[in-house]
Structure formats: C-alpha cells, structure tokens
C-alpha cells in the first residue's frame, strides 16, 4: 500500500513540473506596507476554576488590542506583530503575591518579528523570526524557521516550519520591587515548600502542510503538526483537592507529545457564496483525543460587502490525569482538576461581516477592509464566552505608481 501511495505522488508530481507560467508581462518591484489594527474583546464565565481546585468562578474579561505591520520590498518581507492582552479576573487574586481587590488586572504583552525572502526562481521562499511574550508570572522566547515551495504553475504549495518556545514560569519580572525572576507562585496556603525544582518549559513544534488548487472553484489543504513539550508542564498555582480533603499543587508529567492532523476545503459555490470547511484531529500522550469540525459561509452581498455565519463543533476525550474536585486519590502520581483537560463538547457559533471599499485615502494609503466578527463559545461543562474582534486593514504604497480607486 505505501509503495502504491508514494508511486502515485511521484506520478502526479512529474506531470505538475511540466507546466510553465506566461512570462510575457513585465514585473515591477513591489514596495508596500500592509497594516492591520485589531481589537478583540473576550467575556468568559464558568464554575470550574482550576485555581480553586475545579470549583469556583471562572469569570474573566480580556481586552486585546494588537497591530501587525508587514513591509514588502521586492522579494523581501519584514513584519512585526505586537499587542497586549489585559486580563481582569477574580481568580487572579488567588494567585499573585500581591493581593488586592476582587477583580485584579494582569497583562500579557507580546511581540514577534519575522523576515521572509522569495528566492531567485520564485519557487522557494524561506522565512525566520523571533518573538517574546511576558506576563507577571510567565516569560516566553520564541524562534521560528520555515520554508515554502510552489511549482511554477502555482497550483500547489508545500511548507514546513519549525517553532521553538523557551519559557520561564517564575514570577517577579514585572514586579517593581524585584524586576527579575524570583520564584514560582504556588497557592497562598501551600508556599511553605518548593513543589517543583524545574521552572522552565520548552516547546518544539514541527508544522508542515500542502495546499492544492483542485479546479476553478475548489482549494484543499492538508496539515500535520507534531509538538513536543518538556519541563514544568503543571501550572504551579492550580490547586487539587484529594478525596481525603488534602490540598496539593497540580502535578503533571514533565514531557508531552502532541499530534494534529488537519484538513481544509474552501469552495466557491455559485456566484456569491464561499464555503470554508475544516476538520481537525488531535491526540497526545496525556490521553486527550480531540475532533473538531468547522464551517464558515461567506456570502458576498455586493462587491464591497460580505457577511455570513460560522459554526464549530469540538469533541474532546479528557486526559487520564484529570478528575473533578475531591475525586483524585492521594496515591496518584499525576493529577489535575483543570477542566480544560477534561472530557467535554464545545459549540461555537457566530457571524462576521466585512466591508471592502479598496479606496485611497490620500495619495498612497489604500483602505482595504474592515471586519467585525462575533462568536459565542459554549462548553458542555458550563463554561461560556463571548468573543468580538474588530480589524482594520490598509496598505501604504511606497512605490511611485499607484493603482485602485481614487477618493
């Protein structure tokens, strides 16, 4: 069977190479800057906070502004993405060394820099980047390298990326008195001992994929991702209550292997409707198995307006290390009451709308589009959330010649 499959790939790859593009048109050097400004608002509530052992409020609000800039000059692209997630949560008070009012604020600040270059024959592109993310009790550094190959006819593309995250879970960097990593944060009543001797978490991810244009109206993609994590995978401020009422800190294995297989199919139906479909299968060695199916329908009301609904259904088989409040036995080696790792179903439904005027504001700034997206997230174990995202896209044309509608 495997020889049959490899032989078929080789057969079709041979014929794909025989096509060539029309090179009679002259090409100008691209020189533009793409700008995206976005804001996301997240409202969550639930009853199974892991900070308090699987019971208690999960009420949380996140204010998330962000910006993305991409400058393309010829075959080179430089991009920067940054933002800040401001988190207001009642459960934060059960974590930090600084105890204050009922709804304390925390923030995650992040930035990523990336570079990509299309090589001379325009079939290959290489990319690389680095980034960081910092919270009061978490600091992450990331590195990425990748490559993409597209045959001359542009009907298919392959990519492979490697990402590495080097994380430090110690608190103190953002505290004005310390301004350096000090220690792990445990639940306030359990700070009489050091529960973990490791404070680092490293993640290594290999992403690969293939996209194929099937015909004039259909595009498919197949993606495979393998992720390996090593180090402190427990969250040190998560409580676990054993069945005999003993209180301990969550304890998970210090390595984890994850695998994800994804399929995407986009189809232009009729003259105005696009159907975007995703199927995702996930497995890891914590015992979690997940299956997700999504559909988004985009209806082009007019050349400038489009809107449509989206749906997602996710089914998760929980980790073997999970048990609810006071259901873990004291003899267990690994235990968590984090309901994110439990058995549940998730439903997401919502809608999005987009206005695409493609109109110039001034001589060089092209207003591309504005998008609003709303989703309602409901998990079968009583967690629910509202997600609203507003994004604004524009292009600054750095070249001397402009095109598009003039205002």
């Amino acid at each position, binding site marked *: *069977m495997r020889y049959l*499959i490899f032989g*078929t790939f080789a057969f*079709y790859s041979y014929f794909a190479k025989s096509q060539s593009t*029309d090179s009679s048109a002259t090409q100008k050097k691209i020189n533009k800057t793409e700008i*995206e400004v*976005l804001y996301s608002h*997240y409202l969550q509530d639930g009853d199974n906070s892991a900070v308090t052992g699987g019971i208690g409020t999960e009420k949380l609000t996140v204010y*998330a502004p962000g910006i993305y800039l991409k400058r393309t000059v010829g075959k080179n692209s430089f991009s920067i993405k940054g933002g800040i997630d401001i988190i207001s949560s009642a459960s934060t008070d059960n974590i930090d060394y600084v105890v204050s009012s009922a709804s304390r604020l925390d923030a995650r600040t992040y930035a990523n820099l990336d570079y990509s270059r299309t090589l001379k024959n325009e079939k290959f592109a290489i990319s690389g980047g680095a*980034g960081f*993310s910092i919270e009061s009790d*978490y600091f992450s550094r*990331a590195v990425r390298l990748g490559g993409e190959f597209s045959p001359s006819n542009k*009907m298919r593309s392959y990519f492979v990326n490697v990402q590495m995250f080097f*994380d430090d879970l110690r608190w103190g960097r953002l505290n004005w008195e310390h301004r350096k990593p000090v220690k792990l944060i445990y639940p306030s009543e359990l700070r009489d001992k050091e529960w973990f001797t490791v404070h680092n978490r*490293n*993640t290594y*991810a290999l*992403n690969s994929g293939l996209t194929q*244009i*099937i*015909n*004039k*109206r*259909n*595009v498919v993609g197949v*993606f495979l*991702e393998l*992720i390996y*994590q090593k180090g402190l995978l427990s*969250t040190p401020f998560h409580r676990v209550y054993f069945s005999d009422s003993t209180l301990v800190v969550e304890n998970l294995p210090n390595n984890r292997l*994850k695998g*994800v297989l*994804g399929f*995407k199919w*986009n189809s*232009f139906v009729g003259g105005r409707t*696009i159907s975007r479909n995703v199927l*995702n299968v*996930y497995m*890891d060695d914590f015992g*979690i198995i*997940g299956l*997700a199916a999504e559909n988004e329908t*985009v209806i082009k009301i007019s050349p400038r307006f*489009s809107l449509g609904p989206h749906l997602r259904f*996710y089914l*998760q088989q*929980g980790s073997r290390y999970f048990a609810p409040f006071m259901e873990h036995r004291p003899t267990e080696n690994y235990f968590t009451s984090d309901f*994110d*790792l439990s058995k549940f179903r*998730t439903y997401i439904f919502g809608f999005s709308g987009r206005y695409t005027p493609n109109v110039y504001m001034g001589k060089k700034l092209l207003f591309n589009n504005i*998008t609003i*997206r709303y*989703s309602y997230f409901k*998990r079968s174990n009583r967690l629910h*959330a509202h*997600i609203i*995202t507003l*994004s604004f896209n524009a292009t600054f044309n750095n070249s001397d010649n402009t095109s598009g509608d003039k205002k």
Partner: protein
Amino acid sequence: MKTRIKLSLYIALLMIMGSCTTLKPYQRVYVDDTAMQIGVHSGEAFEHYVESIREGGAHAGSGKSGGGCGCN
C-alpha cells in the same frame, strides 16, 4: 477494516489529484478571492488562541503551536 479505510483514503486522494487542472491567470478569479485563501483570516487568530487555551488540543495549520503562554 484498516485496509478498507486506507484504500478509501487512497482512492479519494487519487480522485482529488486526478481532477487537478492547471489554471491560466484569467481562470483564477474564484480561487484568488481573499475569502478563498486557506490561511487564517482577520478575527480568527484570537478565536484560535481562545480555543488553544480552553481546549486541550491544538489547530493544525493555524501557526499557534502551544507554548508561549501559561496555558495548555
């Protein structure tokens, strides 16, 4: 049973790859539409981030692999 599943997947792949045609630039009106691109679109990235935190799993092809935050 496993052989039947493998054979079915193989036949489906054969049909997909067999139906692939080469499109000329003027035939790419539909596939070049912004909404037809396979990648993650505006507004979806934050939603994927929420899903990666509130679910134990991960998304293939979304660019977010886990790590980088105090989540799963």
